[in-house]
């Protein structure tokens, strides 16, 4: 689990800032590394009050594995959607489905909704006020219940393990 300290109140934000700065200047020289390090420490320190609560990540490694699998699924999703678009649109069976959420953590729900939007034929459209139901639009679906079960097992279960 990633812990925050007084020196680094937001370790993840610091890491992101460090990497993004190096990418922006597009060099790995000692000077830009040093500046990136300074920014990674100072920016979270001064913007500390702006971030209401930190997401707790219990298993950082698993989050990376999740990211890699997501990248692969995005590739597959795109081939799938491309085929659906090129086929005759009259044969598509669109549907709205409601998925009850087991996740409670806001960051985890955000990640799940983004994942749903980026993967096969589904876009997250809305979330109920009590954050218990996610409304999903599907481009082409045969059995909505099977799809919900698939999303729960593939994405929600790992996210629950990582964040809760």
């Amino acid at each position, binding site marked *: 689990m990633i812990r925050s300290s007084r020196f680094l109140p937001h370790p993840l934000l610091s890491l992101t800032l460090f990497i993004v700065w190096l990418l922006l200047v597009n060099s790995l020289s000692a000077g830009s590394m040093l500046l990136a390090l300074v920014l990674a420490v100072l920016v979270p320190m001064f913007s500390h009050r702006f971030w209401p609560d930190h997401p707790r990540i219990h298993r950082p490694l698993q989050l990376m594995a999740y990211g890699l699998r997501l990248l692969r699924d995005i590739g597959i999703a795109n081939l799938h959607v491309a085929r659906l678009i090129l086929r005759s649109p009259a044969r598509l069976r669109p549907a*709205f489905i409601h998925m009850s959420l087991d996740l409670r953590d806001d960051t985890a729900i955000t990640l799940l909704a983004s994942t749903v939007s980026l993967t096969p034929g589904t876009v997250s459209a809305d979330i109920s006020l009590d954050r218990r139901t996610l409304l999903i639009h599907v481009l082409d679906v045969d059995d909505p219940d099977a799809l919900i079960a698939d999303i729960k097992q593939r994405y929600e279960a790992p996210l629950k393990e990582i964040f809760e």
Partner: protein
Amino acid sequence: MIETVIEFLVALFLLIGAAFAFVGSLGLARLPDFYMRLHGPTKATTLGVGGMILGSVLYFSTRGDGLSLHELLVSLFLFITAPVSAHMLAKAALHLRVRIVERTRGNPDV
């Protein structure tokens, strides 16, 4: 030899990217209702640009001026923002009660 392979890969990435971006826009043009149209741009176009950016990274990194990864930033940013804007657009469409194709199953009220 290795130059030919890299050149081939760059060309491949560019073509795959352009093809996906085109298919996404085609979906936007030919699908029948708003919610279905939402699927093309959010997925295919984002990945299409991602593919072209991979091609660009490969091209500029192998010219001898050292590694050039900053294009990845654009791609990363698009992958983070595409689901957010899709979600907000869907929300706006629900709010405005945009027309839905009749054969859509389920109802959109939360």
